[in-house]
């Protein structure tokens, strides 16, 4: 056990303890139905959180994803309403658009040497504004292909349904784990998070990697938008406001350092599930008000950041003490 995996293990432990507490109070929580719903309800958040994990691992931040999800929903809904295109073609066009959008932000961040915070803030305004331009009202999606997509599920033992979108999230997480830990791109992302200058001296193509990271985040935000549109059967420009903050919170709770360079994609999945679990518990309880979700997530955020700080402090002290003894 080392300092790198400790935050991940702590997150896992907290998730298991929290689930055990929920189970002790409501035995029904352990059924595959609840688990299936947990995956389905948080699918769009999970997918976008994978992209956010890569961005944060590289030491950046992407505030635009919530707006991009809303834009995707409106884009799909309006295109399906006004043209006779098949949803699959619309999906493909959308993914190209959002990937290019992310890549453009990455290019600006790298080319102009500006902080990602303000560049993606502009992206956030732009994407939300484009969504408004397409339609201010909520546009329903009534394509029959959507009905088939919504009806696709795999019946788990115990009559729980692993829906298409829940399954998509798990696949995205698996792909994210593979890309982060077993490809050159993943290694480059970690190197970039350790320090752009160091990475550059090591021969990491900083510009190309930065652009690819934000393009990936844009692609996953688009995919998340597709999933969200399947989930709600509508496109609404005011939807998913603040999802970027939920995604960042999930990444931090999942044990990824916001300074970059250290963390796991798998941790983010647990972070998303912990946030979903809090919501499920509040629904099960019935007497707790919804604002406790926000407060609890805030408390969890603080707990995890404090834990990480403590770990960093401990390891740096360990490293320093033998040097001082000599």
């Amino acid at each position, binding site marked *: 056990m080392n300092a790198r995996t400790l935050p991940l293990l702590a997150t896992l432990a907290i998730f298991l303890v929290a689930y055990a507490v929920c189970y002790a109070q409501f035995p029904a929580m352990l059924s595959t139905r609840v688990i299936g719903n947990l995956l389905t309800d948080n699918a769009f958040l999970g997918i976008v959180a994978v992209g956010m994990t890569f961005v944060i691992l590289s030491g950046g931040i992407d505030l635009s994803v919530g707006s991009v999800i809303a834009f995707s929903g409106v884009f799909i809904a309006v295109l399906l309403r006004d043209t006779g295109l098949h949803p699959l073609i619309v999906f493909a066009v959308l993914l190209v658009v959002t990937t290019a959008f992310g890549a453009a932000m990455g290019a600006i961040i790298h080319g102009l040497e*500006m902080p990602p915070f*303000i560049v993606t*803030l502009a992206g*956030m*305004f732009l994407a939300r*504004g484009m969504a408004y331009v397409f339609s201010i009202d909520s546009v329903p999606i009534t394509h029959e292909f959507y009905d088939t997509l919504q009806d696709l599920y795999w019946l788990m033992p115990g009559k729980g349904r692993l829906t298409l979108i829940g399954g998509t999230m798990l696949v995205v997480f698996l792909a994210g784990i593979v890309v982060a830990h077993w490809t050159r791109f993943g290694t480059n992302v970690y190197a970039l998070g350790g320090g752009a200058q160091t990475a550059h001296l090591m021969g990491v193509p900083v510009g190309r990697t930065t652009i690819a990271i934000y393009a990936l985040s844009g692609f996953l935000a688009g995919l998340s938008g597709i999933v969200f549109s399947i989930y709600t059967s509508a496109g609404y420009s005011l939807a998913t406001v603040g999802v970027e*903050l939920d995604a960042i919170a999930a990444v931090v709770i999942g044990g990824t350092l916001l300074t970059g360079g250290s963390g796991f994609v798998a941790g983010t999945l647990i972070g998303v599930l912990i946030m979903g679990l809090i919501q499920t518990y509040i629904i099960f309880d019935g007497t707790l008000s919804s604002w406790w979700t926000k*407060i609890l997530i805030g408390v969890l*955020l603080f707990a995890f950041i*404090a834990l990480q700080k403590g770990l960093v402090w401990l390891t740096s002290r360990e490293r320093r003490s033998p040097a001082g003894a000599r």
Partner: protein
Amino acid sequence: MSAAGHLLRRIAPQLVTLAATLLLIAIVFPGFFEISIANGRLYGSPIDILNRGAPVALLAIGMTLVIATKGIDLSVGAVMAICGAVAAAAITSGMGLVATLALALGAGLACGLWNGLLVSVLGIQPIVATLILMVAGRGIAQLITEGAILTFSNEGLIFIGSGAFFSVPMPVLIWVLAGALVALVVRRSALGMLIEAIGINRRASTLAGINARVLLIAVYMASGLCAALAGIIAAADIRGADANNAGLWLELDAILAVVIGGTSLLGGRFSILASLIGAMIIQAVNTGILLSGFPPEYNLIIKAAIILVILVMQSPAVRTTLIFLRRDKTSSQSETEPVVQ
């Protein structure tokens, strides 16, 4: 160059932008500059911009100081909601106006203290440290108002939002006074320079004998106090505390105002006056789009375009390229000269 000349040169780009924005609105909407006095209060579109821009202007004052230390305060919107909720809860429970205001401002200071402690003592990145309160703060505000919109009818408190003093609307008076006070304190003492020193290099400033820890906490508390003022104004304006929507996304507008004001997010030099003009530019764009009958959907796209232009102007990469190009020209000239000789 004199101090006034320096200042004018510093804020010239912002002034030009503001003037251009106002002129553009006046072209689209004649009669924009008409100001009238009715019921002992100034009316007119320019006054409206000053009045509506009060919350963002107040937030921008605190945000400028925070950003100058290389920090950022994402929680100000949530702090606005908390302080509005505290004020509404206090006044409806029968407390006096002074006690209510003291309590609300105290809540803002406490929020700032929390942020400051996280940033300076625990050493957490400002963006994360303030994210905690941003997420939890709205929950806390809803806890105080118990999820409902808490309305009140205390004349004194409402006066802060919609009253007028010597025919100047109270919100305008408050942000102008607050801005002048902070600018005076910061620039007439060494405080401003110390804040800039922290923003440029905290380690070096600590080594130079600056108490960075205390100063950082003070800066975040100032930001909390400004957010509290903005929260009270927002609540008094609608005569109720709306925990869900009060100050929603205003932290982004405030950050934008500071960036438009030419203060770099990378810390260091700052100008409160320029940030305030930045806040007015944002409000002028908002009001202008409303007045001109332009669909409000385009508001965000215009904002994004403005940020992009400012980014390009502020970008260190563009600046170094420009300097490089200039130097290249002069050096190539000096190289050819000896050949001629």
